[in-house]
């Protein structure tokens, strides 16, 4: 283990994962520093969602090591709850709890996991809902909100747990085009706050604006990893070029 491992938010070494006979992650090595913003892109089925879902152990890996803030995730995920305390996640399908109000969605885990008092949990929930500009909808149910609003609530819900790392799994892919911007703006302001972020997305404008590094994956492998300028202007790998020409020229 390297000396400055305490500076690493996430460390993945030789991670391999299979679904049955299909290998979906192939020898993934990835270091993420504290405060770093990473955009992960690649064709569908390339393993990018799977990769971030391994970090908070929503998926099990068969080989390799994953450490989060210096704590190594055990193979069977016995310390997954411990890791998850530091890692927030936002999903493509929002996954808000339909039977709870926006406010209750943001309070549940605080109350149950952090054992926060109701008043304190409500306070923090309202602060984060204000931060994502949706505090006035606190008493509504998810189904009464637009997709963009729901996704902002989902971001607030994750933030209520004071995560040090945020994982975004295609957060704008399920949104109508006119709602993409409000969610990206929220994520940009979050990035400005210095949190560690890994974001699976094809929003290349967002990548240019906030990413320290853009990583391109294909067929379970990390093909290319570069600063946004270099990544977009001068990709070194043929597959990256092919992918970029497809998503940038439509």
């Amino acid at each position: 283990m390297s000396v400055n491992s305490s500076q690493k938010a996430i460390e993945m070494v030789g991670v391999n994962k299979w679904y049955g006979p299909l290998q979906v992650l192939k020898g993934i090595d990835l270091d993420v520093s504290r405060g770093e913003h990473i955009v992960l892109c690649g064709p569908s089925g390339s393993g990018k969602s799977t990769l971030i879902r391994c970090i908070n152990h929503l998926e099990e890996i068969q080989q390799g090591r994953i450490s989060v803030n210096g704590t190594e995730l055990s193979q069977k995920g016995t310390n997954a709850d411990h890791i998850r305390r530091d890692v927030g996640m936002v999903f493509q399908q929002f996954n808000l709890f339909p039977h709870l109000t926006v406010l209750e969605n943001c309070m549940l885990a605080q109350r149950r996991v952090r054992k926060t008092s109701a008043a304190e949990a409500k306070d923090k929930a309202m602060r984060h809902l204000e931060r994502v500009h949706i505090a006035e909808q606190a008493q509504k149910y998810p189904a009464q909100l637009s997709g963009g609003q729901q996704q902002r609530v989902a971001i607030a819900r994750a933030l209520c747990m004071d995560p040090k790392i945020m994982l975004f799994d295609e957060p704008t892919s399920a949104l109508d085009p006119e709602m993409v911007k409000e969610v990206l703006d929220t994520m940009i302001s979050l990035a400005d706050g210095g949190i560690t972020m890994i974001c699976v997305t094809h929003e290349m404008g967002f990548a240019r604006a906030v990413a320290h590094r853009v990583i391109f994956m294909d067929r379970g492998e990390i093909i290319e990893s570069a600063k946004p300028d270099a990544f977009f202007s001068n990709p070194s790998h043929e597959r990256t070029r092919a992918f970029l020409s497809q998503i940038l020229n439509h």
Partner: protein
Amino acid sequence: MNYSFDFTPVLAAWPMLLEGILGTLRMSSLSMVFGLTLGIVFMMMRMSRQPVLRTIAIGYIELIRNTPILVQVFFVFFGMPAIGLRLSGEQAAILAMTLNCGAYAAEIVRGGVQSIRPGQIEAGRALGLHTADIYRFIVFRPAIRAVYPALCSQFILMMLNSSLVSSVSAEELTYFAQTLDSQTFRSFEIYLTLGVIYLVLSQFFSAALSMIGRVYFSYPTK
């Protein structure tokens, strides 16, 4: 046909019928509550990763759903004393109906739990919630909502089946009707009236359950 219809003895016996109605309501309601609770426990065992728990749950569910409820009632009332469990008619009735309702409820609720999108559970896990909390606070309510109509008809069916427990002298509606019949021999009038009362009771249960549903599941969905 020279039978002259006379409902006066039936109407005169209203205090007895009322006691019967209360008995039916009491035993059915308790069995519903206990049965649903038991059903949830067995549903969780049925879906558990522990083979032993799963096998016990499957065994119980299959046993109950593939034997007549009257046999179950007889077994509890007449059979259990052999192993030292001597119950009154009403206790035996509630126990048998709870066991019966639990098996059906377990399967119905399991359907509801399986209808919950995996993303809901993943969101709970990502927030660091324990499995028990995920079930209690995230899965439970939408799962019950999804199968609530099926659950309600099962409850009503059980209320109607409760007439069978008259055979172990549990003092419910049918038991009193039979008593009245043996005193007055007004079978036609008595059982016609009994049918009407059960019809009204089902309607009552149906309305009460849908009202509970409207309050408990009032959140909007798309």
